[in-house]
């Protein structure tokens, strides 16, 4: 059974909540209109369609184009050998949706990462703590409005962060300036210099 057929089956099961399956380069995506039903849809996908492996949960920050958050679930069926992408949008005012860690235990850490990096909360999660940054860090660093170099922070008795020196940016190229060979004395000589 192909991923498209499975996606259509899931759509029939849930009526108007799921959008038309989109296919792009052999990958099938389904949009879920109501993020509150994500756990229900995932449970049906696992029990009835055989999506027994959760590959990843990730999130996209749309910043100033609401709804701000896009949650992306990558499901895989070992029985059918097919992948399905499930997407759902969450507005910034809510920033919360049900956990799927009851469906796949693997979701536990993925949801902690989304919470740590984006600040989206998962209702019913057994242990919603930060996973990459230290406990008590005040920001969610993968948001679009967070600077790459970081922001200074300090929790006395716990830890601190400082702004990393970016020296103008991570990858700076100035139009009209000398190229890397002339600008950088340690670079190897170019073909014109022999």
């Amino acid at each position, binding site marked *: 059974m192909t991923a498209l057929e499975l996606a259509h089956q899931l759509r029939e099961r849930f009526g108007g909540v799921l959008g038309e399956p989109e296919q792009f380069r052999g990958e099938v995506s389904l949009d879920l209109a109501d993020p509150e039903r994500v756990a229900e849809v995932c449970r049906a996908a696992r029990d009835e369609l055989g999506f027994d492996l959760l590959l990843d949960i990730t999130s996209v920050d749309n910043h100033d184009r609401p709804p701000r958050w896009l949650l992306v679930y990558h499901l895989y069926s070992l029985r059918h050998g097919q992948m399905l992408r499930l997407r759902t949008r969450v507005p910034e005012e809510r920033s919360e949706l049900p956990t799927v860690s009851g469906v796949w235990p693997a979701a536990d850490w993925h949801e902690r990462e989304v919470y740590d990096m984006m600040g989206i909360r998962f209702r019913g999660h057994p242990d919603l703590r930060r996973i*990459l*940054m*230290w406990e008590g*860090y005040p*920001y969610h*660093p993968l948001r679009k409005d*967070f*600077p*790459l*170099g*970081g*922001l200074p922070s300090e929790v*006395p*008795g*716990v*830890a*601190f*962060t*400082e702004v*990393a*020196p*970016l*020296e103008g940016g*991570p990858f700076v190229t100035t139009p009209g300036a000398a190229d890397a060979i002339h600008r950088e004395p340690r670079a190897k000589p170019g073909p014109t210099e022999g």
Partner: protein
Amino acid sequence: MQTTTVIGYDSKVEGDVVITRLEAALNWFRQYSLWPMPMGLACCAIELMAAGASRFDIARFGAEVMRFSPRQSDVMIVSGTVTYKMALVVRRLYEQMAEPKWVIAMGACASTGGMYRSYAVLQGVDRILPVDVYVAGCPPRPEALLDALIKLQGKVRREPVLRTLKRPGPALPVRPPARQMELQP
């Protein structure tokens, strides 16, 4: 008639003796048995392992006894990227090491943050620890680490052991780090 009198020491009875200063002897003991604490945090730790293996053989310099307990180590080799989350642990392990203690910052990340100009990475372990030797490289070759170890041995050899031995507090003058980090008890 001239006679020779043996005073105090008879080499035929007591065997060979080397005479030296106490401080030189103590420093000599110390410098050839620096037990490292391998603080392996990233790919530099692979080169650290290579330095310990037979091809490069850190045992030639008396530093092959890698101790994973801070209580038994003399030199902490910080090899790898120190994230802010791990910085707490690094600092705590350093504080648990018994005096005298030294720190080698191995590689670009441990020395300066390296290529990780990022919100998550401590920009050099010298912001929380007093570093004795910095090793350049990304990652450094095992020879570079051995060179750092020899440089550290040179530093240990010149340390005024006796003058600082019985003083209360840290035995050796510790350069304060750029940033004091308070730890929760």
